[in-house]
């Protein structure tokens, strides 16, 4: 099976002195959901935004290659990544509060987001309303005519997912899709993703620091630490037999996996961190 997305030896630095991503390898195949986990600052979001060329100002790719459907998008013309956006690749962002323009209606924006799709504005609007219904937004015709601030956080994240699905992408990248939501909303969004996977044939890359999300949604997982992919494998394997000490430490910190009541939530200590650096990536 050839990879839909294939990242090889990718290195990205910020302003020339911080290497946010170091020699990372990552593959996503059609029909598969891949998790990318790590703590804050591990470089997972930087890696995800590099795929569509949306790196923040100051960040640049030092080496390595990103290939989409066997064609390199980083070497060669700059437009290669831009053409993928909103067509082959769609993104769902972390904070639904700020992901939509505050002075335009949701429907208006969902029409614009289909800029790469054929059809008249009226058809796109109808498609947007239907998709809002599909992601479980009640009264979608009314909601399409609402402004972002008139909707709840959970509803906006549903709308963001609707936006991504509207362009029928081969690859869906969700950057911390549940991080800004409360626990109830998070459960609902995870449920929605599971439901949508049943008739979505493309690949999904979910960037998160929440291991529960990975366990619920993903087939395979990559673990990042300090800009490096330290471990990669099937979700079941990694959850049951983590090989890298960082993965073990990360799993030990997940409150959902605690077997007995603890006085404090577990953390990764500095002494532990010292051991991670000696461990080789697997």
């Amino acid at each position, binding site marked *: 099976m050839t990879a839909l997305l294939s990242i090889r030896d990718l290195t990205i630095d910020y302003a020339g002195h911080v290497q946010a991503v170091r020699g990372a390898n990552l593959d996503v195949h059609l029909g598969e959901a891949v998790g990318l986990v790590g703590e804050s600052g591990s470089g997972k979001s930087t890696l995800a935004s590099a795929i569509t060329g949306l790196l923040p100002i100051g960040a640049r790719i030092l080496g390595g290659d990103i290939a989409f459907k066997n064609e390199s998008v980083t070497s060669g013309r700059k437009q290669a990544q831009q*053409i993928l956006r909103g067509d082959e690749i769609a993104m769902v962002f972390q904070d639904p509060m700020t992901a939509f323009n505050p002075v335009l209606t949701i429907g208006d924006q969902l029409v*614009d987001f289909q800029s790469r799709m054929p059809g008249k504005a009226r058809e796109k609007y109808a498609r947007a309303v239907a998709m809002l219904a599909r992601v479980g937004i009640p009264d979608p015709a009314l909601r399409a005519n609402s402004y972002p601030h*008139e909707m709840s956080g959970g509803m906006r994240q549903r709308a963001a997912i609707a936006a991504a699905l509207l362009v029928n992408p081969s690859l869906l990248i969700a950057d911390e899709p549940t991080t800004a939501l409360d626990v109830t909303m998070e459960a609902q969004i995870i449920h929605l993703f599971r439901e949508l996977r049943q008739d979505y044939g493309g690949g999904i890359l979910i960037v998160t620091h929440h291991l529960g999300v990975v366990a619920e949604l993903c087939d395979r997982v990559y673990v990042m630490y300090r800009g490096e992919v330290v471990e990669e494998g099937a979700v079941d394997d990694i959850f049951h037999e983590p090989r890298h000490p960082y993965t073990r430490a990360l799993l030990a910190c997940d409150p959902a996996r605690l077997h007995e009541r603890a006085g404090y939530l577990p953390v990764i200590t500095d002494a532990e961190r010292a051991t991670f650096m000696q461990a080789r990536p697997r």
Partner: protein
Amino acid sequence: MLAYTIKRIGLGLLILIGVMFAMYAAVFIVPGNPARAALGPRATQEMIDRLTREMGLDQPYLVQVYNFFVNVLSGNLGIDVISNRPVATEIWEVLPNTLILCLVGLGWATLLAIPLGCLAVLKRGTWVDRAASLLSVSVISLPYYVVAIYALLIFAVQLNWLPAIGDGDPGDIGSQIRALILPAFAIGFTWVGYLARLVRASMLDVMGEPHIRTARAFGVPEWKIVTKYGLRIALIPTLSLLAVSLGGLISSAVFVEVIFSRPGIGKLVTAAVNLRNYPVVMGTVLVMTGIYVTLTIAADLLIARIDPRIRDAFRGA
């Protein structure tokens, strides 16, 4: 929204009433008897006393303000002590001239400044951005009266392309437009730099917001992101600052009208001040305040029109 509009208009009326009190206080404080000034040096004390009575200047302060207020309500701004014509008529004759000058002056500046500000953001960090910044700052630091005098010297006196004074021949639109070019240029000149910098700064703010990233991630064309997603939000702070600085626009119109000897409110009020022609001064100041208040309200309503969040906040107000 309606409640908000009514509230804003009510506040505007309060400002106008406040201005009336302040103007009458000024008559009492500023030296020089208006009646004596109006009658000239050869007037007898008897004549001066009679005119003072006629003008109501012997009445107590509050009574004078009250009389003025009642007169204003019925559209009567008093009588010009020199020409003996109603002040309202005199203002009405020249008001369109001033309004057109302000509108055209601010208009061309806005039409140039908004694209300039957007261009600077699109080409951020390049020589285009730096050139636009340099241009803006140098333009801001030139006062409009300097611009007006140099424009007059160069284009009217030296090159003789455009008329130096007046507002054109009555009925001849062509000559009226030609007479409008230099004053409107002088008024708008500073605004180009001011507005371009405002638009650039607000655009930079907006273009860094996450929703712009979303639009980019969906491949929305960059020109559409700038004009529809960016500019709409960037215009909100620009408009509010614009509303605050409209007073400066009106006062610059006063100077420019004097320099170009162009009939208008500004010309009227400066002549009236020199002659201690109080009814005209008060009438004009009141009308200018009225214009200022109206434009500020208009800007506020426009902002609420653009930003649904502000609209909703006012729904309860």
